[in-house]
């Protein structure tokens, strides 16, 4: 429908207010990331988003050949949004799905998340926040096509109907969208449109295969790392062995002598300084980097050490921290006999995201403009950062969203450190594109980890076998402290460290959750499902222990303890019970089942796993998952996200599933030291069941992760009689 020209005009127009809007919106992002958006709105801590009109021509291009190109305002990195958002739009548009093409939109004001105010992927919010937006875009486009056809035929628009990219008139007339597109683009965008009744959906709710499968199966799809531009150079950076150390001296003679090395120079880093090597090709750059002789200055640099930190954290956990939740009688625990109490201490290590596609960014600096290519979860922030380094306004930086090979939070970094490094390097090579590549070693040792945590929980059990008093102290670095987002911490509490515990849906009358946020010289970052990675593990293993102590079925115990308003969890548990009862009742000898349930990002999930012990490791024979995510936009994607997401969650249990520090240095180097799950570590089969719903859709990217590890160790506990409170799972 739009021409390239009108598209550009739209982007230009929207970019005028770019900087101001994105700065003020950063708060919206954080508040909404860490408080549930609905809850935040209710509490009045977040201004309601202004109603905003999105111009359809920035999102939909109906081409003369019948192709309908839909812009996706998100990064695609596996979660399936590049298929789901076009489905939503195409459904309201009554488009012929076989003609739909999806493109990842570049950074622009119009593509910002309607709720968060920046262009981003995070908090499992892509569908939750853009469902209504993409429906309206589709419906408005359809209305414009109908208006155009009705005018041609001199009939009333409400006498026309649409189907499969064709408008039909009352007198047997018909016109393909492709024929109407250019005229429709000039018609008035309706202020409001009638959306379909959900019973009329033709695509939403159906199992639709991904649009990006074939090019991902034949090697033709280009990820950011695959980018090849004329005269492009490749950069790698030698970074200090301890975060924050600086280059004292560098002997680069051997490095420079390699054929194909273009330059070697010191650059500032987010933590210390490093040495960049730029060469014609990656292998040359890497070899040259290996030959650098760098002396580092460690003055004033604190050296993190995992075992010392755990000792310190455990001390801290014995004292009350900053209050995150205080309900009921704070002294209730003291009134309960010691024999009716559980004291549990948990340890969680640092975790690397380690997406399969190593981090990279390509930038060409042309003096008054720049062009950047990156698989980014934070396009708005990364574009601003590149502009800042290059002395350009954000709108002078054309920022292309590249398909990314995973991310799990690692491509949503407030300090844009990868893009800043790339920009510093590109600045020196004016007119020449430079691709910065982080090697896998750089990635594993490069920080921005899920923080390590200690939890100490004291539970007092009531006469009914239910927890009546619960005192929970969490120790872990804040994700927000020390970043521009620190202002969104409330009374010093970073909600991302306590979510899943402080807001538990279990009806515990006397609940006290507090948190300590130590400062440690290790950069930390949200890791797929953020605080729920550890809080769900603690909650769900303790609830299981309580159920076992009370000799009550673990599903029934949870159903009894959940508040009635925890509708999604209760629905998921009910469905789980129905779908897993038959196999749970007839387990082979040496097998046990484990249960867990957890709500995160507005999605309720319950799971049952069948586990045995093989070669001293948990063998996961089967997982049954039940999920309530509101309207299931693409059930096939939801099934796929949960099947794989639970296996991703098992990263936490892997024998070598930890990042550890010794004297400030990361002890792991690559996938041989920090080992993600391989096929034999993953469940053999996962069946996923979706609770039917007419509620607004919620996310499915993160909610699979929290439930799996507690369910597996709950099963292991039945087999061994042990409780598993230290991760990773080094011994069974």
């Amino acid at each position, binding site marked *: 429908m739009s021409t390239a020209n009108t598209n550009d005009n739209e982007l230009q127009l929207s970019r005028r207010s770019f900087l101001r809007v994105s700065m003020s919106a950063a708060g919206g992002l954080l508040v909404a990331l860490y408080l549930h958006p609905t809850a935040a709105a209710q509490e009045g801590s977040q201004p309601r988003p202004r109603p905003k009109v999105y111009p359809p021509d920035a999102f939909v291009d109906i081409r003369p050949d019948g192709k309908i190109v839909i812009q996706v305002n998100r990064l695609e990195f596996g979660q399936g949004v590049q298929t789901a958002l076009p489905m939503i739009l195409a459904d309201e548009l009554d488009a012929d799905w076989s003609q739909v093409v999806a493109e990842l939109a570049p950074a622009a004001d119009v593509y910002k998340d309607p709720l968060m105010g920046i262009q981003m992927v995070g908090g499992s919010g892509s569908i939750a926040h853009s469902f209504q937006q993409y429906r309206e875009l589709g419906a408005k486009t359809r209305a414009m096509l109908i208006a155009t056809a009705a005018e041609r035929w001199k009939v009333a628009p409400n006498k026309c109907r649409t189907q499969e990219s064709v408008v039909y008139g009352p007198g047997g007339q018909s016109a393909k969208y492709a024929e109407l597109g250019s005229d429709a683009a000039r018609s008035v965008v309706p202020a409001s449109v009638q959306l379909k009744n959900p019973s009329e959906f033709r695509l939403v709710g159906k199992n639709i*295969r991904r649009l990006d499968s074939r090019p991902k199966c034949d090697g033709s799809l280009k990820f950011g790392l695959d980018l*090849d531009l004329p005269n492009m150079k490749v950069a790698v950076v030698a970074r200090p062995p301890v975060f924050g150390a600086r280059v004292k001296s560098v002997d680069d003679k051997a490095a420079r002598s390699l054929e194909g090395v273009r330059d070697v120079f010191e650059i500032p880093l987010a933590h210390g300084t490093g040495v960049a090597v730029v060469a014609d090709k990656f292998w040359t750059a890497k070899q040259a980097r290996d030959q650098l002789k760098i002396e580092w200055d460690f003055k004033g640099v604190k050296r993190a050490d995992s075992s010392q930190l755990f000792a310190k954290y455990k001390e801290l956990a014995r004292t009350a921290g900053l209050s995150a939740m205080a309900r009921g009688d704070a002294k209730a625990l003291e009134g309960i006999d010691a024999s009716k109490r559980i004291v549990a201490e948990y340890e969680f290590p640092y975790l690397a995201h380690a997406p399969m*596609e190593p981090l990279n960014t390509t930038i060409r600096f042309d003096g008054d403009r720049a062009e950047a290519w990156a698989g980014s979860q934070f396009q708005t922030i990364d574009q601003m950062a590149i502009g800042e380094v290059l002395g350009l306004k954000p709108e002078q930086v054309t920022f292309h969203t590249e398909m990314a090979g995973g991310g799990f939070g690692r491509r949503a970094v407030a300090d844009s450190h990868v893009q800043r490094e790339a920009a510093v390097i590109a600045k020196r090579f004016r007119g020449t594109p430079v691709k910065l590549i982080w090697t896998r070693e750089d990635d594993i040792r490069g920080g921005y980890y899920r923080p390590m945590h200690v939890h100490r929980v004291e539970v007092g059990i009531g006469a009914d076998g239910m927890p009546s008093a619960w005192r929970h102290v969490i120790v872990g670095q804040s994700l927000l402290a020390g970043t521009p987002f620190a202002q969104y911490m409330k009374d010093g509490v970073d909600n991302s460290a306590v979510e899943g515990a402080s807001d538990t849906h279990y009806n515990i009358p006397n609940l006290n959750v507090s948190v300590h946020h130590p400062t440690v010289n290790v950069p930390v970052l949200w890791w797929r499902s953020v605080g729920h990675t550890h809080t769900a593990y603690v909650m769900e293993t303790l609830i299981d222990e309580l159920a076992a102590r009370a000799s009550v079925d673990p599903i029934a115990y949870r159903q009894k303890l959940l508040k009635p308003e925890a509708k999604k969890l209760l629905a998921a548990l009910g469905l789980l019970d129905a779908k897993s009862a038959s196999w749970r009742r007839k387990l082979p000898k040496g097998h046990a089942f484990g249960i867990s349930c957890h709500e995160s990002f507005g999605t309720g999930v319950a799971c049952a796993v069948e586990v045995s012990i093989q070669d001293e490791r948990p063998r996961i024979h089967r997982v049954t998952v039940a999920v309530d995510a509101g309207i299931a936009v693409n059930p096939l994607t939801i099934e796929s996200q949960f099947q794989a997401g639970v296996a991703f969650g098992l990263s936490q249990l892997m024998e070598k599933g930890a990042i550890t520090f010794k004297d400030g240095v990361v002890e792991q180097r690559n996938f041989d030291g920090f080992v993600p799950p391989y096929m034999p570590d993953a469940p053999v089969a996962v069946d996923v069941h979706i609770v039917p719903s007419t509620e607004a859709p919620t996310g499915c990217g993160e909610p699979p992760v929290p439930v799996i590890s507690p369910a597996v160790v709950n099963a292991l506990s039945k087999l061994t009689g042990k409780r598993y409170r230290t991760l990773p799972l080094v011994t069974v």
Partner: protein
Amino acid sequence: MATYQLTVNGERKEVTVDPSTPLLWVLREDLKMTGTKYGCGVSVCGACTVHVNGVATRSCMLPISLLGERAIVTIEAMNDDAVGRVVQDAWVEKDVVQCGYCQSGQIMSAVALLKATPKPTDTNIEESMGGNICRCATYVRIREAIKTAAARLK
């Protein structure tokens, strides 16, 4: 620098590179065939899997100077490979991919498995695919797709 004659997907290619350059980077940067992926560089993730004389091989640690006359086959040739095409179709039908970055390597490992063992057991599948990391962890569907492909292969 040295000049090497290679046979890639049945075509003769000539490259002039440092002899230590791994096959992976020759494919990606010199021959501009980016379907083969860099994941770890130390032969533990399988993203760089290609076939060398028909054997699934990690290309990220294989110096070009050691390759000799061996025939190299990459993901780009799978469209025209009888088994490769069936495997790709099964992958699409089963909606296996998520981020997709590891899938070139997964498919190359799966094709090698099915060429050697047309009717693989679960144990065969785990053994042959057990060196390929999928960080999205799409393993359940990879397993299903291999079984689907196996059922279709004569």
